[in-house]
């Protein structure tokens, strides 16, 4: 178990302790305030260079990370790496070596292959690697911003500051994650984060969109989605990843919506206090109805805003922190 990401790579949440996760959340809370200032910038990473390497298409996550790095005063090298670089013949090792030769402190990277960020971590041990999504594996900052958002909402309701509540808001919290779990790196990171903090996580998905070999996942699979909605404090709706060929895993999108879409009708089963989340980009009308996505229970835009302070915290701790600074 990793007890702090200070001075370390952030590749996966499945080896982070509750303390490591809380440290990121508490740090992010400080950065929320920075983002509300007129001058949204702190000198924390002044003079540091962060390379943003997206081997897979992304607008939101990339913008969020680059915004975060700039608000920490880091210089950002944004490299347009087409996913075809392998087809052009350049290996991942060579691409990274080239960028490393420019002099960098951190790499934020997204890649369509699971484990690509781990590999890069091995190639450039002196550079901090932040995984911005690797294949079907992990999307650590999404998992962190999801638990951060939940804590923020629940703390506000209790008129407390999130950092004062630690992980108490998560004790026994009912979290239901629904949709394309099989192809979802967000689901894997969310499940790691929620369970590390003590939540009770259940998943709902058509048989074909449940991951193979679930027996060691710290979750319970529910067969009755409607019943589970009544149970849930938090519903995390996943994007149906049609670009990953998910279409052939269900008979039709219409049937998916009928059985596992968060329709307006189905949303009425939710408790009034339930929080609805979605990592975006949404397929409105497929996994979630427009009306539900725009309802007060949905915190989807807040997730997006929280992406910046969470990524600031991840970059700050990972790049600026040294292992020695970690309280023993």
């Amino acid at each position, binding site marked *: 178990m990793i007890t702090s990401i200070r001075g370390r790579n952030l590749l996966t949440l*499945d080896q982070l302790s509750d303390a490591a996760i809380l440290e990121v959340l508490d740090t992010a809370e400080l950065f929320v305030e920075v983002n509300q200032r007129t001058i949204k910038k702190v000198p924390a990473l002044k003079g540091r260079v962060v390379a943003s390497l997206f081997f897979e298409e992304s607008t939101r996550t990339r913008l969020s990370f680059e915004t975060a790095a700039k608000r920490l005063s880091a210089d950002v090298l944004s490299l347009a790496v087409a996913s075809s670089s*392998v087809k052009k013949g350049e*290996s*991942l*090792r060579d691409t990274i070596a080239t960028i490393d030769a420019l002099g960098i402190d951190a790499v934020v990277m997204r*890649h369509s*292959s*699971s*484990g*690509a960020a*781990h*590999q890069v971590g*091995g190639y450039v041990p002196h550079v901090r690697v932040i995984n911005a999504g*690797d*294949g*079907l*594996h*992990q999307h650590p900052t999404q998992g962190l911003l999801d638990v951060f958002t939940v804590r923020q909402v629940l703390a506000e309701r209790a008129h407390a500051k999130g950092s004062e509540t630690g992980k108490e808001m998560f004790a026994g919290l009912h979290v239901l994650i629904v949709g394309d779990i099989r192809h979802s*790196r967000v689901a*894997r990171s969310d499940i790691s984060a929620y369970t590390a903090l003590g939540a009770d996580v259940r998943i709902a998905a058509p048989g074909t969109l449940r*991951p*193979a*070999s*679930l*027996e*060691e*996942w710290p979750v319970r699979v529910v067969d009755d989605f409607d019943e589970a909605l009544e149970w849930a404090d938090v519903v995390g709706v996943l994007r149906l990843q049609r670009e990953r060929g998910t279409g052939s895993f269900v008979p039709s999108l219409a049937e998916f919506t009928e059985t596992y879409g968060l329709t307006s009708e189905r949303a009425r089963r939710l408790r009034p206090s339930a929080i609805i989340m979605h990592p975006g980009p949404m397929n409105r009308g497929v996994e979630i109805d427009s009306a539900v996505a725009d309802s007060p229970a949905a915190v989807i835009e807040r997730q997006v805003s929280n992406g910046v302070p969470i990524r600031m915290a991840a970059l700050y701790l990972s790049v600026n922190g040294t292992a020695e600074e970690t309280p023993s």
Partner: protein
Amino acid sequence: MTYLLRQGLVVHSSSTRVADVLVSEGRIVDVATTIELPRGADEIDVQGCWVGPGFVDVHTHLREPGREAAETIESGARAGAVGGYCALVAMPNTEPALDNVALVSYVLDKGARTPLDVAVAGAISQGREGLHLAPLAEMAALGVRLFTDDGTGVQDPSLMRRALEYARPLGVRLAQHCEDESLAAGGSMNEGVISSRLGLVGRPALAEELMVLRDIELVRLTGGSVHFLHLSTARSVAMVSAARREGLDVTCEVAPHHFSLDESACAGFDAQFKVHPPLRTVEDAIALRQALREGMFDAVATDHAPHSPELKDRAFDEAPAGMLGLEHAAALTYEALGGPDADPLRFFEVMSRGPARVAQLRAGDVRVRHSAHGGDVSVGDDANLTVFDPRQRWTASREDLQSRARNTPYDGRSLIGRVTTTIAKGQLVVHEGKLV
């Protein structure tokens, strides 16, 4: 040349004894408790070592023609020699595939210029595309005794049936890479709890087992014979063993990586551990070791699969499958057979006699161009001999390989037992663990 191997434990087919072995003019000319050193002979002290028939690998990817950057017939033969091999069967998934007499002849000719015997496995289907039969009879006339589309299995059961029916009267054997591609599609490691956690698409054990089951039934239907390549699951071995007990003509092999490693090695996303069929569960690896000790495998076969570094450096799902095997197979097999408790008879059975039987390279077989392998170590045998020192401790290193490629999964692994001497086709090829 004349060599006298002094006082090794000579491993005959069904007994062992400490003796001297005299090799001259390409044959074993004497085996006796003590032999006087003939004039001009080289004396090699092999006390404490096992002396047996030279190893035979029925499953080597020599990459030539087409991918000489990864391996050539010459470099593969060197790697084989230091691993104790006297004969290699070159797999046909080259570029282009070995699916006609011209290409088979090319490999046989180049092989003949190496110190080892290089036999060829021909492709079952034209271009290994699984659509039309390759000219099996023409290739058989050149001495090809094994046919396979290895790299993939023959997916179409109807084509496999035709191939079995066609091969039977030719006296040749079909070797199958068992993986149903529709079930394994897109997968890069064993499907299970680890692939699920890592977000890597899995290749389920069932993809292999289903084709093993299918081919056993096709052998039953046609009366043909199949050699099952690199079985990797406990159930696959159980099915083949049961089929053999029923009297079906089936043989099988296991690769060192499937009994020495397991799927957990993939957790670091290092593509050195990517192979097809994939590394399986710990339970499978244990079952394979037990099956090996119990004699259920005809052969340990390396599936030596060189890949150039730039390909293995790719992300796990994008990297090619396969790993090196020739140079470490003997030590890993010794370990799997129980290390100090290993039975030398079983060891030479799976490293030499069994694979020679499968590849039809023994003295009684109809061989073309090749010397006889997998013999008894008695007077008159062709001099293909391997000396294995079960006491040597060493560490596998990527830097020490004779292969052109570097994709060994064993870098840094502690090993016990090492080949010290290889005499192939009557010539001393490896002495004190080094190429002569």
